[in-house]
């Protein structure tokens, strides 16, 4: 295949005349007159985040640090969720009593599918787009965890909310080699008659708890 490689690169070079040696300066000189940094304080970001989550038919709760366990319990009870899968590093002390929690030690997809839902943390969140960002970091588990169960409850820390996507991408570039997933609302399709249906291949319900 290296023949194809050399061929294609040669065609590109003959078409464009080849990259200019000062490409880096030219790149740096490109105009960037759009909003990259947010100006909102925490309350403002939280309000914006809540509005956007609401736009996606998601639900956002806020609670104090000492109320996390009770808030999780209330959210699960409200939806009648009993059997919940959590990432393998998720601390038992942060989970309420009265539910069946399963730690994901390489469960099969079938086993994941049989759970009512999943609880994860996140790497960060973006207020302007109502997005939570997951990598394979702390309390986030593997990729299938936020994909196979039908209900996803995500915990977001106060300092994890950024206002704009460019700010978030800047932060993520430190861990950029990891598989990264932006999640903005529940899985959805509008492929038949432009009618929005939730839960095509991923979770039907996305719920967020912001720990203030």
């Amino acid at each position, binding site marked *: 295949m290296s023949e194809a490689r050399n061929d294609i690169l040669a065609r590109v*070079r003959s078409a464009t005349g080849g990259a200019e040696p000062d490409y880096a300066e030219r790149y740096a000189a490109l105009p960037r007159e759009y909003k990259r940094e947010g100006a909102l304080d925490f309350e403002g970001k939280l309000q914006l985040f809540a509005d956007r989550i609401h736009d996606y038919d998601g639900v956002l709760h806020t609670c104090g640090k000492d109320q996390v366990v009770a808030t999780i319990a209330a959210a699960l009870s409200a939806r009648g969720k009993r059997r919940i899968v959590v990432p393998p590093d998720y601390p038992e002390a942060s989970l309420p009593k009265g539910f069946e929690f399963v730690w994901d030690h390489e469960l099969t997809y079938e086993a994941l599918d049989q759970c009512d839902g999943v609880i994860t943390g996140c790497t960060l969140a973006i207020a302007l787009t109502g997005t939570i960002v997951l990598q394979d970091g702390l309390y986030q588990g593997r990729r299938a965890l936020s994909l196979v169960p039908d209900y996803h409850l995500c915990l977001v820390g106060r300092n994890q909310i950024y206002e704009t996507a460019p700010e978030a991408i800047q932060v993520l570039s430190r861990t950029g080699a990891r598989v990264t997933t932006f999640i903005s609302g529940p899985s959805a399709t509008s492929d038949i008659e432009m009618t929005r249906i939730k839960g095509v291949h991923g979770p039907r319900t996305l719920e967020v708890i912001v720990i203030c």
Partner: protein
Amino acid sequence: MPTAFNEKISQTLGNQKLQLALYAGTGRLVEHRKHAVAEERLPEYQELRSHANALKKHTIEHLDHYLEQLEANVQAHGGQVIWCRDAAEVSDFVLDLAKRRQARLIVKSKSMTTEEIDLNERLEHHGLEAVETDLGEYIIQLRGERPYHIVAPALHLTRYDVADIFQEKLGIPNETVIEKQTMIARSVLREKFLAADIGITGANFLIADSGAVVLVENEGNARLTTTAPKIHIAVAGIEKIIPRAQDLGVFLKLLGRSATGQPLTVYTSFLSGARREGEIDGPDEFYLVLLDNGRTKLLADPDKRESLYCIRCGACLNICPVYRKIGGHSFPWIYSGPIGAIITPQFLGIQHTPALPFASSLCGACAEVCPVKIDIPKVLLDLRAGVKEGPGKAKSDWLERLGFHAFAWLMCHPKAYALMGRFSRLAPLLNIGPLRAWRSQRDLPAMPAKSFRQLWKERG
């Protein structure tokens, strides 16, 4: 005009059900986009477009550098880069890999690039099963059709069409509730995901400085395609590259809003290389296929090179008065609408699609909504010039020339022009010769009771 093009247009125009689906579907997408880019929601919209255009221009002009950088970074993450000059090289690669790994079942997430090279047909011809997993794509695959629209492949179908094909192919009788239809597809496709040996995706963006493939979607099928099978192959045109992750913010802001009016699509995945040490999910092997298939030909023409800036949002299709009447299947290739009208002749050769650049009123709506500011009408005019000046000039040249000469003369002689204006009120009666063919696909507006000149005179 080639008759196949004409015939499909006539069929679409004569099909009321289809006209309604087209009108309603594109109309809704137009409204959603308008809402999402409105001044109060996205005050920096025009700056974003300019920046996106500048970024694409820069990247395309330095494409060789960024391609080599991308290759090095994909390899650094344990992935392999496969360079392919054409469709056959892609299918040869996939077939060879499938043979070596004894793979039989392939799941696919929606990709116009793989449609472009007829990958499914090529694989199926050699006994592999390739299943589309995006709901719309799955439905049209069952029907043996091509996508009707770049982002809404089943735009032309109703729930009743879906019920019919589910009955025929899946044996599920008369299910016309959209939510239930979606759940049927979900459960059929879940089994395919779990059994699949290979997952094939396209790529919305390739990030040169990190080697990441970025996939943008709403359903989660691209996530499953890249999570469950042991092998992930991403097939991307060489123009999909952007220099750095930080540039992505601009394109993500524009893509979702322009396509469906979403600030961001539900899932945006950044995938670099294969599964790493300590990770549980993800493929054991990752391949990035970089496809030329005519792109370097477009690149070589500085006047039309901007056609490669396209991020496949479909906004130009939705807004186009021609697409909204003639639909996606009238177009000769998988890329339809204004963007299809400019890239198809450049990919396939203008001699094969000479009618396409003329299937436009040059109203400019496409250029106005394009998130990366491709000047589609300018490229169309360029292509038209190519048809008129190229080999095998159109037969009707003398007639057209006569027409324009007459028009020029009339414009210079006001009295004659006024007289002609009166006669033109008889135009609806003229339905002979070449006019008959032209009018068979176009409605003339109703003649008002009085002409503008008369009204002006009456006002004193």
